[in-house]
Every structure is written in C-alpha cells, then in structure tokens.
C-alpha cells in the first residue's frame, strides 16, 4: 500500500521538511534573541523577553497557525492601508517558528545560565569582547548542553508541522486527505501516513541522538 502512494507521500513529506527547516531556523534565532533579552541586566529587556516566552509557550500551535494566516494579514493590512495576504507556507513558518521560539528561548536561557561565570571572566581577562565570548565560549557549550532537550523539541516541531495542512500547505497530511477525498480509502492512506511519520521521526531522531552523544562525550569524558 505504501508503494502505490509513494509519490504522494514523498511529495507531502518534502513539504513537511521545508516547513520544519524554515520554522526551526526561525525558532532558534528568535529563541536566542529572546533568551538574551531575558538575561539582560536592564529590566525593560528582561520584561520583553519574559513576555515573549510566556505568550508563545502558552499559545496552541493550531490557533497560532490559524491566527497568523487569517488575522495577522488583516491587522498588518489595516496598519499600512493595503490588502495583504500571506502565502500559507509563510504563515506556517512564522506561526510554528514563533511558538517554538518560546520553548527554545527557555532552553537557551537555562543553558547560558549554566555556564560558570569564571569561563566568561577568563575570556574577559584575555581581552575578548562580550560578543566574542558569547560566540566562542558560551554558545558552543550551550549547544552541547541543550542538545538532548533540543532534539525532543525538534521532534515536537516536526510533528506540529502536520497541522499546516489546515491552511492548505500541501504537506503529507494534506496530500493524503486530498487522495482520500477522491478514492475513499481512509484506512490504507491514513495508516501509511502515520507509519511514514513514525518511521521518519524514529530513524532521524535516533540517528541524531546517537551522533550528538558521541560529540558530547568527547568533551565531558
């Protein structure tokens, strides 16, 4: 039954992968910025960072996707006095990227705060700038420490990409639903969709975990 629908499944899966990669990039960069705001010494920055984390961590993916696709363009359009529409792919990436940036911000913050101040002071006494210390001393260690947690979040994000079919991004679920409407065979189609997701996530996540453990162990042995 896989074989019959392999092209449909693969085409759909490719879209899941696109949405996942783009949303992950957004989530990581926005999450890092939010984390840096949260640990800033100036309280207005801290406040903005905290607000960001609380808003996006507590927003359901589904509502965010729908809101960004249908409401945000109206608001932005009203603000600039022109009708605008988001491509479904763009809405999906923004919505999922921001929701997950809330989670990643917390992971980054915990990671950054776990780095001993002494490592940073050693950098300062070598004349390194704060930015250089962040880039060369802090973040490389944070990435290693947060990897196990981040992999779990990436898995959640990948699973969350299935809801973009709601706003007509032609992902795997969307493709499968389309075929089901024509062929009326929900059992084999939904089952192959489920099995495909399972197989992809199981294999890829397992592999990434294995590689990341090897990499971490070299340093903390």
């Amino acid at each position: 039954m896989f074989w019959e629908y392999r092209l449909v499944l693969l085409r759909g899966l490719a879209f899941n992968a696109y949405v996942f990669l783009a949303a992950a990039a957004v989530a990581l960069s926005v999450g890092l910025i939010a984390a840096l705001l949260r640990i800033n010494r100036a309280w207005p920055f801290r406040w903005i960072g905290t607000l960001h984390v609380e808003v996006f961590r507590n927003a359901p993916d589904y509502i965010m996707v729908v809101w960004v696709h249908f409401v945000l363009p109206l608001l932005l359009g009203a603000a600039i006095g022109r009708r605008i529409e988001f491509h479904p792919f763009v809405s999906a990436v923004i919505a999922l990227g921001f929701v997950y940036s809330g989670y990643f911000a917390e992971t980054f913050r915990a990671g950054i705060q776990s780095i001993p101040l002494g490592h940073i002071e050693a950098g300062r006494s070598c004349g390194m700038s704060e930015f250089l210390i962040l880039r060369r001393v802090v973040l490389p260690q944070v990435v290693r420490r947060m990897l196990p947690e981040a992999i779990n979040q990436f898995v959640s994000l990948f699973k969350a990409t299935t809801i973009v079919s709601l706003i007509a991004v032609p992902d795997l679920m969307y493709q499968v639903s389309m075929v089901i409407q024509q062929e009326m065979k929900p059992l084999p189609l939904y089952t192959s969709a489920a099995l495909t997701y399972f197989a992809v996530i199981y294999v890829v996540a397992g592999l990434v975990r294995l590689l990341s453990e090897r990499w971490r162990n070299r340093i903390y042995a």
Partner: protein
Amino acid sequence: MDAIPAIRVVDIRKSFGTLEVLRGVSFDVHRGNVVSMIGASGSGKSTLLRCINRLETPSAGEVYIDGEPMGAVEGRDRPLSEINRMRRDLGMVFQQFNLWPHMTVLGNVIEAPIRVLGMSRKAAAALGEECLARVYLSEKAREYPARLSGGQQQRVAIARALAMRPKAMLFDEPTSSLDPELTDEVLTVMRELAKAGTTMIVVTHEMGFARDVSHRVLFLHNGQIEEEGSPAQVFGNPKSDRCRQFLSKHLQ
C-alpha cells in the same frame, strides 16, 4: 629602578552596596618584580586583583598600566572596547582554572591570540606550543581539559595567559583548589616565570613561595594595606600585631 612602574594602584576603593571591601589601597609594582599579597579570608585580596584588570569596576581610585590609566582616557570613562584592549596587557590566573572545556588544551591557549590579537592560526600554534613548553605540557596539546589533573589544568591556564604576551600576570590563589601533592608543579612554573623577569602580583597562602620569590609582600586587612615591605621585613619583623597573628597561624 625605572620611573614608570608596570602597575601603579592609586587609592582604590570598592564597595558592594553598603559593604566597603577596599578602603583606599595604593602600591606600585615595578617591571620584573613579584608582589605577593597575603591576608585573611575576606580581607579583599581577590577584589583588589579584580579591580586591577577591571573584572570589578572600582568605586574610586585608578590603576595605571605602564603609566596609562585603566579607567579613563583624556578625563573620560574608558569605553568597554578600550578596557578590553587594556586587559590584553594583564594575564589572569584564577583559583578555579576556568579553562574552556569544549576546546583542546592548545585551543584554549591560542583562542585569544587568534581572535583578539588577530594572529594567523599557524603563528598562534607556534606561540601556543612555546607557551605549553614553558609549563611542561607540550605532550598534552591535543587533550581536552577534562582529561587533565588539576595541576595540569592550572598550568594550561598559565600558558593561556602567557600567550597574550602580557605586561604583567595576576594570580589569584592559583594553588588553593589543588591537592597538596599537585601544588608544587604549579609553584615551580611560577618560580621560573619570576626568575625569567615576569612582572607578577600573586595572591597566595603559600608563605614559602611569598618569602622566597617576592620582591615585596603586602598584608591586606579589612580592605587596607596593613603591612608592607620586603619578605625579610614582613616575615622576619612585622610591625603590626594583626600581621604577626596572621603569620603565626600560617607559618607552622
């Protein structure tokens, strides 16, 4: 003795909130000299060292490196980028080593020469090997810090500071977190640095080291220099009672 000291500390004061930790400390360190700083826990030794390379901003007073003020240029506060530039001239060695665990030993040593001084990787590696040789750790260049003993880690930290070719080295109790059998290897390296004419300020509880190696000894009490002089003076015939008490406790 040359006119301009390598380090001149003038009336440094530091408070944390209402707690006055340093109450006006002044002294000079001449080029090639070793100054040891001793004193009870909480007397402000670390804070003083950290004020010198501005890991702490002094509440008042000024530090001059080769005559150049750390905290100000042309009467205005020195911006952070400029302070970073001044800090290159002061190597710091911490009680807790503070090596970067994700870099190899050589990586730790050449990081700042490459990124801060803009040296080529090749030139930095040659310099790094030279610095590691000075602390007798050439064969550990490609290890990660977690694989080294405490004494070896501290020697790497010394090599990392030396690689910046600083004008002076600051040591904050470099052997205090080491097992007793590992302190000697670190002290040996420090003695050799002193013999080679390195300008050093050393906060230490190793009275033997302070007596043998230093040109001057400062006894800090309650944020002030209570006693100061040559090792012979301070250890042989201290003027202050507190210094005498402190020494009788620490010289068995």
